[in-house]
C-alpha cells in the first residue's frame, strides 16, 4: 500500500503513473482532464515524527526552561534558554524556542518566517495621488501622505526588491498639494483683506 497521495485536481481520484513526468499533456485516466504532472522525491518521503524530550535523570543535568523535568539538548539562539527536544524548533539550521519564533514572526526579526508586510510606500503614494480626482479632499490627504512618507521612510518595504521611488513621489505630490493650498489660502485672505 503506497503512503503518498497524488490526486487529479478535477475529479479528486488518485492519479496513475501514465500521467506522471510527461513532457506533454496526458489525460487523467478517470475524467480525461489534460494534465501535466511533475513529481519529486519529497512525494515519497515519509513524514518525520516529532521528537519528545528525554527525562532528566541526574540532578546536575541541564533541564529545559519550559519543561524542567526534560533534559536540555539545545539552547535557543534568540534568548539563550535551554530547550528540550520537544521545544527545539529548527529553522534553516538555527534553533529557537517557540516563544522566540512567535515573537520573531510578529516583529519581523526572523525574515524567513515573516509572512506579511504593510506597504507604507504604496499607502503614501495612494494618499497623495488617488484623491487628485476630488481636489478638495487633498486638503486632508496631502498632510496624511506627507506624514506616512516621513514616518515610515525607514520601514521595510516589499520583500522583493523595491526602491523608495513611491515615497519620494508621495513626498513631492503631497508637498505640491500643501503648497497649492497655502498659496490658495494666502490669495483668498489677501483678496478679502
Amino acid at each position, binding site marked *: *500500500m*503506497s503512503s*503518498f497521495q*497524488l490526486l487529479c*485536481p*478535477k475529479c479528486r481520484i488518485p492519479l*496513475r*503513473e501514465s500521467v*506522471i*513526468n510527461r513532457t506533454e*499533456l496526458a489525460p487523467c485516466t478517470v475524467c480525461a*482532464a*489534460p*494534465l*501535466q*504532472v*511533475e*513529481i*519529486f*522525491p*519529497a*512525494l*515519497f*518521503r*515519509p*513524514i518525520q515524527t516529532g521528537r519528545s524530550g*528525554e527525562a532528566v*535523570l541526574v540532578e546536575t543535568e541541564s533541564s529545559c526552561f519550559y519543561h524542567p523535568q526534560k533534559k536540555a539538548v539545545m539552547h535557543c539562539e534568540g534568548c539563550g534558554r535551554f530547550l528540550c527536544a520537544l521545544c527545539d524548533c529548527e529553522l534553516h539550521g538555527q534553533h529557537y524556542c517557540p516563544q522566540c519564533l512567535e515573537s520573531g514572526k510578529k516583529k519581523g526579526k526572523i*525574515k*524567513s518566517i*515573516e*509572512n*506579511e*508586510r*504593510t*506597504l507604507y510606500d*504604496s*499607502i503614501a503614494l*495612494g494618499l497623495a495621488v488617488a484623491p487628485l480626482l476630488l481636489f478638495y479632499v487633498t486638503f486632508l490627504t496631502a498632510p496624511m501622505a506627507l506624514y506616512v512618507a516621513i514616518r515610515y521612510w525607514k520601514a*521595510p518595504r*516589499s*520583500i*522583493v*526588491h523595491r526602491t523608495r521611488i513611491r515615497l519620494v513621489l508621495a513626498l513631492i505630490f503631497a508637498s505640491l498639494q500643501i503648497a497649492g493650498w497655502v498659496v490658495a489660502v494666502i490669495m483668498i485672505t489677501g483678496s478679502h483683506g
Partner: protein
Amino acid sequence: MADEPRYKRLTRARSRSRFAVVSAGNSSLWLGPDHLLCIDSTGFTEHYKRFSFRDIQALIVRKTDGYKYWSLALGMVGVFLAIIGAFTGDRVGSLVLFSIAAFFSLCMLLNLALGPTTVCYLQTAVQIELLPSIHRLRKARKVINILRPLIASAQGELAPEEIAARFSGTTAQTAQEPAVADAPPVISPVAPTARDSGEGTNVPPRIVS
C-alpha cells in the same frame, strides 16, 4: 535590507479572482535562493507563502478551456459590433463601431496567441496550493523548466523505474531512505526494559537502533 534574500520574478501578478476588474488582490511568484515565494498582494499589504525546494512534492498543471470560451465571446462581440457598424447609415457611427469591433478582435487574437489556459497547483506534504499567476500552459512549462533542476538539486532525482515501482505499490527504496538509515543512532539513557526489570536509573546509556 542586507539580510533579505534577492528574489527573481517568475510570473507577473495576476488576480486570484476570475473577475479581475472587481478584485483587488493579486498573486505573483518569485524565485528565492532555496525556495519559491508566492506573494498575495492587495496593493497596500503583502502576504507571503514560501515553498522550500526540499518540500515541494509535485507540480500539477491542468489545461482548461477558458481561452476557447473567452476567444469565442470576444469574437462574437467583435462580429456583432461589425455587423451593426455595417448596417448603420451614419459614417462616424459605423467608424466608431468598427473601431470597437477591431479592438475586440485584437483581444481575441491576443488571447489565442497566448495559448491554452491552465490552473496550476503546487503540492507539499501539508497543502495543495493554487498558483493563480501561472495561467497559461506556456508559462507553466517555463516555470516547471526553471524549477525542475532547482528542486532536483535539493531533493535528488526520481528514476522512471522508481516511479513505476512506487505507483505499482512495490516497496522500492527511495532516494531518501538510505539517508535515514545512515543517521547516527539515538542514545537512550535508560532503555525501557532496564526500568521494567528493576535495574533502576543507574544503568549506563544504551544505544538503540
